[in-house]
């Protein structure tokens, strides 16, 4: 069951006061402009045993994504499409507050929102990943491990997934006498577009993109918007307990488009590099 969170109120209030005071002077505590991302480093191909992998550092947030490609049964109702299965675990290494165990509601939301961006953009052309229609298809697992957590896990994880998929090499399966056989060859995955998520938090009336843990601790609300290469919006998720005005949402959709394009350019270089 979903439940609202607790924290020490005095500390919480002081932290928020300090934060609001800085924001009243137009400053974030780490000195960034409201619409500035932290330093983003992406390294790909770090896990030899995976079909694709990426490590993303977004400020101090660090995420690894690994792609495994196997064969399996299609999902019900999607008999002629490859199956895409995504998971995310916030490792107990990531912060003093993580307990090992099955994913909590935050981790479930995280992986579902990242999944939605990939799936709705149709980044991976699943129609090209069927093998024996209705019986056997490509099953693409994308698993994410959050190694260190300093805010905005959603975007960091999303970029790791996109980078890992984009640079992965899928095994080529063939059908020989009704059986699926791994040929030992590889192929690039069928990529159609590059979805990029942009996340912001609202603190008071300020909207800050790429929040740190410190900022998330003071946030009233969160919003994530994912755009694809042609600039259209493919997924949105409002999060946390505060509201947004319609204006704030519309303004943010413009920011998400522009910032999305910036980060998309950066990620595109991975494949040419």
């Amino acid at each position: 069951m979903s439940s609202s969170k607790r924290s020490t109120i005095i500390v919480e209030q002081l932290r928020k006061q300090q934060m609001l005071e800085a924001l009243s002077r137009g400053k974030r505590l780490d000195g960034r402009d409201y619409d500035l991302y932290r330093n983003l480093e992406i390294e790909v191909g770090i896990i030899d045993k995976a079909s694709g992998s990426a490590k993303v550092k977004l400020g101090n947030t660090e995420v690894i994504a690994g792609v495994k490609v196997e064969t399996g049964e299609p999902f019900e109702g999607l008999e002629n499409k490859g199956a895409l299965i995504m998971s995310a675990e916030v490792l107990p290494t990531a912060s003093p507050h993580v307990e090992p165990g099955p994913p909590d509601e935050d981790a479930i939301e995280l992986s579902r929102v990242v999944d939605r961006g990939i799936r709705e953009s149709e980044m991976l052309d699943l129609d090209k990943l069927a093998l024996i229609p209705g019986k056997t298809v490509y099953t693409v697992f994308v698993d994410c491990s959050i190694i260190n957590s300093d805010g905005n896990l959603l975007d960091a994880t999303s970029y790791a997934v996109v980078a890992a998929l984009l640079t992965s090499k899928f095994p080529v399966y063939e059908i020989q006498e009704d059986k699926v056989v791994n040929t030992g060859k590889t192929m690039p995955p069928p990529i159609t577009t590059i979805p990029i998520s942009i996340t912001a938090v609202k603190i008071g009336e300020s909207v800050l993109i790429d929040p740190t843990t410190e900022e998330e601790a003071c946030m009233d609300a969160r919003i994530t918007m994912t755009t694809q290469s042609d600039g259209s919006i493919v997924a949105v998720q409002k999060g946390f307990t505060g509201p947004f005005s319609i204006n704030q949402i519309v303004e943010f959709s413009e920011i998400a488009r522009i910032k999305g394009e910036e980060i998309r350019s950066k990620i595109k270089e991975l494949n040419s590099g």
Partner: protein
Amino acid sequence: MYSLKELTLLDENGIRSDGRGINDLRSIKITVGVVKNADGSAFIEFGKNKIIVAVYGPREVHPKHMALPDRCVLRCRYHMSPFSTDTRKNPAPSRREVEISKVMRESLEPSLILSDYPRAVIDVFVEVLQADGGSRCAGINAASVALADAGINMRDLVSACAAGRIADNIVLDVNDLEDKEGDADMPVAYMPNLEQVTLLQLDGKLTTTQFNECLNKAITGCKAVYEIQKDALMKKYFGNEMELKEEA
């Protein structure tokens, strides 16, 4: 396939698969106070959605260490009965239900004055007896009414409605078929008096222009739902007076 889809979901006269126009809501009926043991409750029929919501609280938190010294904890469970869907649903909570429980709680919380009940908990139990498209919006509508029925101090009601896209058309209140076969679905929850959005999700592609149109259409829907929520509460609490007025 595309033409077939257009044909099915929206015909040349702008009529949708269930006979509605693009700006029509499905039929909505809300009944207040349907669960005897609960502190507040409501039953909503929203298209084919049938959802019952019971509210318990404010009451003591168990385990006690979960209590907050300065405000009330809000908990929410969205759950689908095994017979609510086309093929039987496993009764164990799915990841989808976990996520919806979370966004539903977060969409209701801004409307509640939780600081009025420190150290307590309010539980909102949303049971989907039959699911059609838009069950999370329908559930929020019933939950907000049930919270009002429970006498919880509130800043506003929360009214929810989705809009979506079928080919080039933005349509109000996406049904099950349109959710599965359409091109985008955007559930929105809104506090009509405070003019604030408390739930916003999107699955599917929208240009920036379509996004704005879709958001505004959804909010129009929320406002229409708000009137039905108010009527339902009026009917329970001032039922006799209303009838007198009508007669007069």
